[in-house]
């Protein structure tokens, strides 16, 4: 008799997983089968059109679209732009990831209030999602089929990469956790949740090519900023602010390690 005590099906996705998997597969612990089955019909696709509309619409106090926003390939040029981020931008003199670049353009170009944007950036579960989530997905989807290509050339990109590496291994707090405590070895799980082996090339590539992703248990599209936010919450760290150098550094480190992965978004997560 299998003892399933302690399992809490808090989410539809876990429930679906259990229902669609034959009992034998679950016993073998092969949860990846169920996960693959779910990827084929990814509800996150719906957010792409929403993001596209938001991108071209004239919005904000200045009533302009994002077509003049430069994501690194020239104003409005989105093909392959996300594949090269985070990267250095001369106009802000900063290394920015996709989400912080969106904040830059939405404030400077469209005139939105930065604090308001940040407050709404990570949406509530089962909501219709935030503008930034939809935009980040749409823009990244314009790199679908292309290879991640984070290059280090500006000094600030080198700095960001090294800081990210340092932070990945930095332990603190009452759990003594850095990122590597959960993501440093292959085939590991927290309870039933698979952990990506990020110090391997393949693992870093999975990270670099699957966000933004539809999160089944939240019914919304989630971004890399959200992912990091949720990690540090479990690590018992204080509240991580949105689009800080801390998360940009970690993303630079991971994406660079994940170079040459073929981008396919939205990813699908539990």
């Amino acid at each position, binding site marked *: 008799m299998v*003892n399933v005590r302690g399992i809490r099906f808090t989410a539809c996705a876990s429930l679906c997983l259990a229902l669609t998997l034959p009992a034998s597969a679950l016993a073998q612990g092969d949860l990846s089968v169920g996960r693959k089955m779910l990827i084929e019909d990814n509800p996150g696709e719906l957010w792409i059109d929403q993001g596209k509309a938001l991108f071209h619409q004239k919005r904000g106090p200045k009533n302009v679209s994002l077509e003049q926003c430069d994501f690194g390939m020239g104003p409005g040029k989105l093909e392959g732009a996300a594949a090269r981020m985070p990267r250095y931008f001369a106009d802000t003199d900063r290394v920015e990831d996709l989400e912080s670049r969106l904040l830059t353009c939405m404030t400077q170009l469209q005139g939105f209030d930065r604090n308001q944007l940040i407050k709404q950036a990570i949406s509530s579960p089962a909501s219709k999602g935030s503008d930034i989530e939809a935009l980040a997905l749409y823009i990244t989807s314009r790199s679908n089929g292309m290879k991640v290509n984070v290059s280090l050339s500006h000094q600030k990109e080198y700095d960001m990469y090294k800081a990210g590496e340092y932070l990945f291994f930095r332990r603190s707090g009452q759990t003594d956790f850095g990122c590597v405590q959960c993501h440093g070895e292959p085939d590991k799980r927290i309870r039933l949740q698979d952990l990506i082996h990020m110090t391997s090339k393949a693992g870093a590539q999975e990270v670099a090519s699957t966000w933004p992703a539809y999160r089944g248990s939240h019914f919304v599209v989630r971004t890399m900023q959200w992912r990091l936010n949720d990690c540090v919450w479990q690590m018992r760290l204080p*509240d991580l602010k949105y689009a800080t150098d801390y998360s940009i550094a970690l993303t630079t480190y991971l994406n660079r390690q994940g170079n040459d992965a073929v981008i396919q978004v939205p990813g699908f997560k539990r």
Partner: protein
Amino acid sequence: MKKTTLFKWMTLAAAGAMTAGCASYPDEATTRQMAEKMVYDAFAFSPAHKGRLDQDRSQQICSKIGDAKLTQAEAAEIVKLARASIEYPASGKLYGDWKVGDRLAHDGAGDRIRNGKLENRKENGGLCQNCHALAPGEINVGNVGPSLTGYGKQRGNSEAVIKYTYEKIYNAWTYFPCSNMPRLGATKHLTPEQITHMVAYLLDPQSPINK
């Protein structure tokens, strides 16, 4: 006039080389300085929670980058600090109630912070289930740490085993410097009394983990 122009161009070229050609990885000390600043800029924290960001000496040593190994001297320092950190329950009894320990072992919550608010809990969970296999047949368990199934069956419950188990949970680095396991007692995630219950859960012949 001509000379000045030439000089101007040379200066520009040199500046260009410095910004484009000579960019490289910063050294360790610079990296540490930049990254540490990022930590304190990135989190919104009250004074009470600043300690969650500050690294103690052991955490600093245990944050080796990549495959860098601990030196013998560092390992010895970790063990010394870990030994010194261990506190025992006021009662002096290291063996509590396995039923309470069973509940704690399966509780992964406690002390998380969202929007500045601390998770509202009577006590913190023991977190064991997140990383360790526990009673036989339980499937919702992690594997970051080794299986604990049959822990007491294999070791018995002599005084020495009880003391070792208590100290291992209180501060895992006493026996395994810089292991992935949180120093649950030393960081105050768990109280000494809670740890005695987990000791009993691991060692008691009646505990499901030894069935």
